[in-house]
């Protein structure tokens, strides 16, 4: 009942947001505009706490200001009464905070357990952290991809996560809070988007030189689109035979050393896990290199010419490719739909 009153209060927040965001259009990593049930339950909890905090803030700062204004020294002001304390007050201001906290504690604990529970009809996806990109595996469909996580919008997904090297922290602000990716241990996170849409993701935990460029995208698709996407992803890439530029690129790919690290199903096949993103459907991804770059020709040229310049510390070497090789590679990568 009290809770209801507080949630009514909630609408005030828009006023507040309009005020503070006067100079900002929308921020893709905004944690205050939830677009799924998990994020929303967090959001409600946050605003509940926030308004309580605001009230306490106003009371304390008010008391502070009032005392300063009322009691500041003026000429001829008599000496103050020497009050040493007051047990009754002491009890009051111990008990009231306890009650307030107890009031917040109940929904907090409930939400903690709600968020941790595995949803019943969830799609299971594995998220593996690498310095500095996220790898995704769909065990039910035998798919391996990177950077862009594609999820169905009609049902929740359950992420099972771990790291291949250091700690990372998976965060899609509009869908849920963060969860670490720990080497040697598994952690879990649920995602569920209200609608088909695109969201930003970011690695939260400091994970070395290119931590800031360890980003991601989440795309939620309607049931139909999702199935189409799955079907496409399950296809192998075609081996190109003709003498086109793309075919030239393919041979660069096979001969310049890319195959030490990258896999393209059907062209250079999986032999266990590789340390680099699977490129089979590279062209189907809107972003690459840990979602730090838009997938376009210019960015790809820069990347292939000198990866470490874009992502310091990266494990992809500068293979001293010629311009012609790069162009061919880009043409080839463009065919990997």
């Amino acid at each position, binding site marked *: 009942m009290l809770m209801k009153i507080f949630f009514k209060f909630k609408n005030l927040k828009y006023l507040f947001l309009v005020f503070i965001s006067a100079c900002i259009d929308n921020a893709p990593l905004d944690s205050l505009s939830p677009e799924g049930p998990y994020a929303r339950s967090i959001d409600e909890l946050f605003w509940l706490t926030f308004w309580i905090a605001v009230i306490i803030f106003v009371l304390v700062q008010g008391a502070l200001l009032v005392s*300063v204004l009322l009691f500041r020294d003026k000429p001829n002001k*008599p000496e103050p009464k020497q*009050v040493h304390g007051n047990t009754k007050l002491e009890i009051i201001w111990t008990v009231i905070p306890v009650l307030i906290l107890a009031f917040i504690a109940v929904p907090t604990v409930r939400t903690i357990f709600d968020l941790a529970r595995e949803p019943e009809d969830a799609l299971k996806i594995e998220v593996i952290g690498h310095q500095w990109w996220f790898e995704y595996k769909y065990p039910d469909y035998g798919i391996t991809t990177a950077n862009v996580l594609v999820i169905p919008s009609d049902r929740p997904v359950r992420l099972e996560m771990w790291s291949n090297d250091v700690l990372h922290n998976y965060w899609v602000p509009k869908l849920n809070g963060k969860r670490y990716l720990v080497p040697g241990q598994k952690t879990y996170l649920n995602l569920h988007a209200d609608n088909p849409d695109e969201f930003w993701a970011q690695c939260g935990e400091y994970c070395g030189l290119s931590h*800031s460029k360890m980003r991601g995208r989440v795309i939620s698709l309607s049931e139909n689109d999702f199935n189409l996407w799955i079907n496409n992803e399950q296809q192998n890439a075609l081996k190109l035979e003709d003498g086109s530029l793309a075919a030239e690129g393919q041979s660069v790919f096979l001969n310049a050393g890319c195959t030490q690290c990258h896999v393209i199903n059907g062209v250079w096949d999986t032999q266990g896990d590789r340390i680099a993103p699977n490129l089979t459907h590279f062209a189907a991804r809107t972003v690459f290199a840990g979602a730090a770059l838009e997938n376009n020709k210019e960015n790809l040229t820069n990347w292939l010419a000198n990866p*470490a310049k874009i992502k310091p510390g990266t494990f992809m*070497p500068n293979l001293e490719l010629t311009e012609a090789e790069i162009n061919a590679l880009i043409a080839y990568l463009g065919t990997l739909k």
Partner: protein
Amino acid sequence: MTKILEPKKQNSIFRRPSSETGIWSWITTVDHKKIGIMYGYAAFFFLLIGGLEALVLRIQLSQPDNNFLSAAEYNAMFTMHGTTMIFLAIMPISAAFFNYLLPLQIGARDVAFPRLNALSFWIFIFGGIFLYSTFIFGTAGAPEGGYLDEEVSWLGSAPNGGWFGYQPNAGLKYSPGTAMDFWALGLQILGIASLISAFNFITTIINMRTKGMRFMRMPVFTWMTFAVSFLLAFSLPIIAIALFYVTFDRNFGTSFFLVEGGGDPVLWQHLFWLFGHPEVYILILPAFGIVSEVLPTFSRKPLFGYAAIVFAGFGIAFIGFGVWAHHMFASSISTVAQAGFGLSTMVIAVPTGVKIFNWLGTIWGGKLKLNTPMLFSLGFIGMFVIGGLSGVTHSIVPADTQQTDTYYIVAHFHYVLFGGAMFGIFSGLYYWFPKVWGKMYNETLGKIHFWLMLIGFNLTFGPMHWLGLQGQVRRTWVYAKETNLQFWNVIVTIGAFIIALSIVVFMINWIFSKRNGEKAPFDPWDARTIEWSIPSPTPVWNFSTAPNVKSLDDFWHSKYDEDEEGRAVRKPTADQLLIDLEEDGLNPKEEIILPNPSYFPIVLASGLPLLGYAVIFKSIALAVVGVILILSGSFGWGTEPLEEGH
């Protein structure tokens, strides 16, 4: 005039140092006041360095995708900024206050172990120098197998694992080079310094109180020193061992925190925060103590709820040991642990609230004199509450999973660290300025400092709340233009420079007032505690006769009575009392024996960094020299009595 005994020479293997002025008198001193002053200056120096590093960070962040700094440099800068501010600035500034004030407040002639006190200071200095020598000797680079486009500059060759050095990123494989070894060993050395001073202060408070100074008559600042010393004594050992593990992992092939060998990176998080959370109360409780002295003095009223404030302080210290995993809410801890630590964290708000309300109770109905120390104390309450409340929003675990690792956290901890600890410290620096130097600071400059700092501070750290909620992740060298975070980042950077300006004002005030300030009256604030009952600047021997304490705020009660309404009335004898006290304080009636200066603390301390270098450079020779220094220091120490001849 003074009747200090000339130290008898000899009696020891080496000749004792005997300079009373000049540089040697500082190097060999065991006087808690000199040590306190040295702590203060050293810490302030590091505060400037840490601040400069922050300004460099802010310049980089004022534009999206900026390239003022390289990634390696940025990472080194925030790591050194955090490490410096916490271990080399705030902790030692608090130590400066403890050293200078603690014996005065309990009416003692010195701390329990004066030479240990000097040792602790020199270890701190050598630790700081050792840590900063990373810019010269340290190396850093890309993780094993990774590539860098450019050489790492000297600026980037500092520790870069963040101030809590999460494993395995801070391990050898992912942070190659020696920079992180400098960090681990540097903190180890600094930890030893703090641990030693903690033993010293605990023993001092328990055993060296003057006659009548019962526990419940001690000033609150002394109480908070006591609490902080406990926190140090019980939390530093944990980090010491954890840092040992890191050093072993990095240098001797073990794998305590590395999965490849069966280790557990999350264990490091536990061990670090088992120390790290008590640490944040180590940083704030001294400020609580200072504020509890300043508010009553300038309100001309006793502290409201003395006992409650004292117990709340200990409550915070105690509960503070049970909340560490709130830094790991998003980590791999179990759901039950999340709930448990979430609840325990909320509980901390209660004793802290008790303090806040009692402070408000203190100023309520008082006669507030808004001098600079008072302004900083009032500012402290206002700013700390903001930080505390955002802390409570972190304790709401699900909400914290959105906030953690963003600038919302950065905002929280700067509000408590800067708005809390630093405001409290500035309050104390102004408040005791006359006591230490015998001069008054300039009130106008002080007020300018306060207002500039208040404004700059809020401009800097206020918008960070918003930035964090908008998705700016901490420890990010660049942020994408599309995230639309630029506007407030510019404001933040401007704010940081306003803070810098305010600190320049402070330094000008300090330097000029110390040299040319008005002579401080005997009791400039009409204060309450016994450190004001001795002349300013404090004579070397502190109290020439042992004060006999009859009540809480003994000095005040020797000046004031209460009338039937409970109002303070100045005793007619008060003025004469002050004159007598000054006369008595300057001319001790009996011979006073003071501890003699000694070379050995600094000799012993100088061995520690050598051991550190020995590990880093894998040099047995350095280790041998280090051990020899330590042994000869201890040997000289052991054979030399604390004070000569009586």
